């Protein structure tokens, strides 16, 4: 909502500056988002209205003309201009030397292609007028002024350039401030300034008007009140300049006197109005009803609109002539030939207007106001006020009387406000006197008063006040939030803490970071194409996505079922920016249909941890490069599972050859205590190719919620560090290539028992001295007992047991 400072000052006496008022309003809940003032220097007196006496061609330049002007100082001036819309007899804004225009442009005498020019003719733009607020024909070229302005007058005053505009950011509850009068009332409540609201002589119900027309409200649930008045002898002209300027100041484009007055009154009172060409109404009557199935109407903007029975229309005897509260129909539009108008001032059901304007994609100043509820009680007053102004500017003659169709009068019940409750909710000690003063300043009616408090009726334009607590807010905001004390809650002391699940998440995040991975956050919605890129077969469960009905784009149209696509997209983007060595992780939810919506009211959400790595830790002057490959991420997983409470004996990796998006020969299922918790692998080369990634990428994906609960987040009791010495022995075997190292390790651990403290593969060798199809594995075993020093013989015996088992199981050739 734009508020003209000059206009405001006519409605309420203000001693403060615009900045002071802006601050007062902001601190009482009507946020002033900006103060707009003219960019030109308003005080030079060098901007004059000039009459063009003569226009001649410039002898040297085709695109220039020479204007002879009278600017009221008794002499003719020559000004050269490049504009093509000037003609003798026009009045135009003239910037004389010394004037300062938009952008600080100072006007000086100049010589243009050999002709001396004593100033400049101005366009709207150069005067700092926003061109989208003025009629299209005035937007380019010199701004042509109306004929009735005085030659030599100050253009600043003529065009109202010295007005200041306050930009209000209104919350939905304060739709009343979509009318200037209510903004003035708010200021009066804040400053005590005297109000000067328009006074109108009430029309009488019935009269001539009622003889000439009638109103029937059929849809009483959608229209509570409809006031109609008639104005005859209509003469359509442009509005007087003052009216045009008012509208322009508040962002409304002037059109003609009738339309401008209805817009002006809407801006003044907040009540939208509509004028029909009375002679175009079939049967000369108004019916307010639901649209018929399949009914159509061409609206003022020339568009054919299809209507449905959920929409409220204004109709005559035969057809819809307007979409109620949204836009009028073209057939009954006020035109140059209109003789009599029927003026509508009505109250429509906000939600219905909202639905209709949404459905039609038609949002107007009127619909915006109806949606948020206008003042039901002032409908008649506003109609009368409009007629008054139309008559005042000579647009027509009133027909006496009015039709006021108001079938069910609204009876508001008074609301109780308790003094004690006010101070209890606010934590204040405000006196009843102060409270009463505030209530009165807001024109809240005190119906009854006693020691406990009051029975109150809010003014009819404040439809947001419905409960005791609403009055409490009114008192608080006028009392000033800043004056309310600052305290701390006095209730029960509580312990703030994380749940076991929340602790686990924190630990996972910290462990991933500690291992050198970077956390990323990606959107929860993805492009279904990204699932195709993973090579998921038709009917794969991960393809059962939850679709957003109104996505912003295809890229963000379904909820992710896996974190992998998001991470791969980040990998791709980073590689494109030359960040080729990456170790990333994300913790976030994925979304499964899982019986939604037939069996479950909501889809299933699962928390996942996923990581990707690619590239390497680059070779330094001291060390070799280390790849961020499958085995790197496998190590990350092992560390993670250990830190969050599992021993490596409980963790296993199993070959898997058809995991979605993964290389069939390089992927594994991760199990903890035999239960599947996630997958680890290298991203499938075809997927990488589709994404244009030309380096290998490893990934893992863990369902955090599937981690066996008994260990989740809890580190097992610490095992005391034994004081008895450890014994280290190496063990090297040659096994066939197809034997999994994991199986060898598992067997060693099984046979070794609890005294084996560490088992580490330190060499994997193929080649010379090893038979083709075989590999050599070299392990280092650390033995230790908690209660004694192990003897050589004991260790030897353990190794023999292991050796035998390995030979038997894998046909291993032992080398030592």
């Amino acid at each position, binding site marked *: 909502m734009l508020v003209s400072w000059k206009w405001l000052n006519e409605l309420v006496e203000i001693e403060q500056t615009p900045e002071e008022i802006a601050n007062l309003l902001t601190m009482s809940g009507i946020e002033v988002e900006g103060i707009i003032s003219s960019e030109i220097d308003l005080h030079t007196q060098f901007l004059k209205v000039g009459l063009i006496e003569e226009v001649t061609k410039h002898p040297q330049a085709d695109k220039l003309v020479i204007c002879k002007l009278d600017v009221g100082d008794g002499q003719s001036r020559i000004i050269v201009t490049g504009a093509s819309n000037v003609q003798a007899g026009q009045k135009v804004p003239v910037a004389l030397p010394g004037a300062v225009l938009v952008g600080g442009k100072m006007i000086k005498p100049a010589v243009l292609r050999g002709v001396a020019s004593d100033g400049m003719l101005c366009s709207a733009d150069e005067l700092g007028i926003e061109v989208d607020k003025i009629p299209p024909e005035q937007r380019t070229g010199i701004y042509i002024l109306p004929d009735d302005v005085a030659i030599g007058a100050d253009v600043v005053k003529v065009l109202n350039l010295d007005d200041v505009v306050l930009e209000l950011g209104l919350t939905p*509850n304060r739709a009343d401030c979509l009318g200037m009068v209510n903004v003035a009332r708010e200021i009066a409540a804040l400053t005590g300034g005297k109000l000067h609201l328009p006074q109108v002589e009430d029309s009488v119900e019935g009269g001539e008007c009622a003889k000439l027309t009638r109103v029937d409200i059929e849809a009483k649930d959608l229209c509570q009140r409809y006031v109609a008045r008639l104005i005859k002898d209509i003469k359509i002209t442009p509005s007087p300049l003052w009216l045009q300027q008012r509208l322009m100041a508040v962002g409304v484009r002037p059109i003609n006197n009738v339309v401008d007055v209805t817009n002006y009154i809407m801006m003044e009172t907040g009540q939208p109005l509509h004028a029909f060409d009375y002679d175009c109404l079939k049967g000369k009557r108004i019916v307010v009803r639901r649209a018929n199935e399949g009914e159509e109407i061409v609206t003022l903007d020339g568009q054919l609109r299809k209507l449905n029975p959920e929409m409220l229309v204004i109709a005559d005897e035969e057809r819809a002539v307007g979409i109620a509260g949204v836009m009028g129909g073209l057939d009954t539009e006020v035109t140059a030939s209109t003789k009599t108008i029927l003026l509508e001032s009505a109250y429509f059901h906000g939600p219905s207007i909202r639905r209709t304007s949404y459905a039609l994609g038609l949002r107007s100043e009127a619909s915006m106001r109806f949606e948020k509820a206008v003042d039901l009680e002032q409908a008649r007053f506003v109609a009368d006020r409009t007629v008054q102004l139309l008559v005042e500017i000579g647009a027509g003659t009133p027909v006496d009387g009015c039709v006021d169709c108001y079938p069910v009068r609204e009876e508001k019940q008074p609301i109780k406000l308790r003094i004690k409750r006010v101070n209890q909710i606010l934590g204040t000690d405000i006196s009843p006197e102060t409270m009463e003063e505030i209530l009165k300043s807001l024109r809240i009616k005190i119906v009854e008063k006693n020691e406990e408090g009051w029975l109150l009726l809010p003014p009819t334009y404040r439809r947001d006040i419905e409960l005791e607590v609403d009055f409490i807010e009114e008192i608080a905001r006028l009392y000033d939030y800043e004056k309310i004390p600052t*305290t701390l809650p006095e209730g029960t002391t509580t312990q*703030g803490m994380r749940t076991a699940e929340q602790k686990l998440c924190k630990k996972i995040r910290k462990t991933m970071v500690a291992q050198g991975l970077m956390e990323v*956050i990606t*959107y929860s*919605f993805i492009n279904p194409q990204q699932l195709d890129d993973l090579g998921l077969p038709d009917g794969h469960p991960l393809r059962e996505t939850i679709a957003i009905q109104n996505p912003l784009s295809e890229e963000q149209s379904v909820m992710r079922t896996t974190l992998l696509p998001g991470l791969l997209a980040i990998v791709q983007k980073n590689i494109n920016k030359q*960040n080729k060595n990456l170790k990333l992780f994300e913790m976030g939810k994925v979304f499964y249909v899982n019986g939604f919506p037939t069996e479950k009211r909501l889809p299933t959400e699962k928390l996942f941890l996923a990581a990707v790595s690619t590239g390497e830790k680059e070779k330094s002057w001291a060390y070799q490069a280390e790849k961020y490959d499958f085995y790197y991420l496998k190590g990350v997983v092992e560390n993670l599972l250990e830190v969050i409470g599992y021993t490596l004996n409980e963790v296993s990796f199993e070959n898997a050859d058809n995991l979605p998006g993964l290389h069939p020969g390089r992927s594994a299922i991760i199990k903890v205590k035999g239960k599947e918790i996630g997958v680890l692998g290298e991203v499938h080369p075809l997927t990488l190719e589709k994404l244009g990634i030309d380096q290998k990428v490893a990934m893992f994906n863990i369902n955090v919620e599937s981690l066996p609960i008994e260990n989740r987040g809890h580190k097992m009791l610490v095992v005391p560090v034994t004081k008895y010495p450890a014994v280290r022995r190496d063990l090297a075997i040659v096994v066939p290539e197809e034997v999994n190292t994991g199986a060898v390790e598992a067997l060693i651990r099984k046979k070794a028992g609890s005294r084996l403290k560490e088992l580490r593969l330190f060499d994997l060798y193929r080649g010379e001295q090893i038979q083709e199809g075989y590999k050599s594995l070299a392990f280092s075993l650390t033995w230790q007992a908690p209660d004694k020093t192990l003897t050589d013989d004991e260790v030897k015996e353990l190794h023999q047991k292991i050796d035998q088992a390995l030979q038997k199981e894998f046909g291993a050739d032992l080398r030592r």
Partner: protein
Amino acid sequence: MREQLHLLKEKAEKEILQCTSLNDLNDFRIKYLGKKGELTQILRGMGKLSAEERPLIGQLANEVRDSLESKLQELTEVIKKKELERSLSAEKIDITLPGIRPELGRQHPLSIVIEEIEEIFMGMGFTIEEGPEIELDYYNFEALNIPKDHPAREMQDSFYISPEVLLRTHTSPVQARTMEKMRPQLPVKIIVPGKVYRRDDDATHSPMFHQVEGLLIDKNVRFSDLKGVLLNFARQMFGANQKIRLRPSFFPFTEPSAEVDISCIMCKGAGCRTCGHTGWLEILGSGMVHPRVLEMGGYNPEEVSGFAFGMGVERITMLKYGIDDLRLLFENDVRFLRQF
């Protein structure tokens, strides 16, 4: 024999001077003082000596041994010192070569800030609650006093899954869910961090962003308590001298409602570009829980009261780290992430 000893001493004293390494010294010791060394060889002849001569020769032999041993000792130390010096100087490194830095991981700035907010409120006795990101219209709107067709729904353009199911537009539905779960217990004292979604995508809006919601319901909770808790938060988050300012505002689920500003962290309130020359930065919305919300949650507004607040994590993160473009937070460029 005396002669022999003298000769031995003379010869040994000459020879020891030829020793240049610890190895030489060891050889020397073996040659003269070892079990089969020359001195020992000579002393083997002691048995043939007379009783008078024996102690004298014995004494002389001891003197020779002691003298050689002390020379040996002396020289060992000298050589050891020299060898150490030699090896230290040979081991000299170029300390200006770059260090080998272990690669550090980083938490995402948004997750750092969420954690920080959690810690602050946990310190004030709030527990952490969570809720679904795909939510029922009932919890997202209706239970929060935003019935269908309420103009306030416009403030939050939503992503719909079905007419009754949507991506939550704020973390506030967890207020309603928690009340339902806990009623009639008191106090309800929670914060709710999480992802939220709105149909907006431009330089200052992301279709997915993060909020932290707060709720306290107890007997006799006052608006002044809200001010105190938020002031405490602002000071821990942005610095001990922070001021806050509450402005009346509107949210359907609170009444009275307030926007909360903090004094601008860039200019300390003097006015600058960041704060639009007002000296204040809007960081959160808050208010006293609306009586209808309490009722729908199963609490009697005549008996209990409460406050609620909600803040945008992106906004706070951007202010805290001086990030001027929201999109950086979701681009996940590692050069950006590495800075946290």
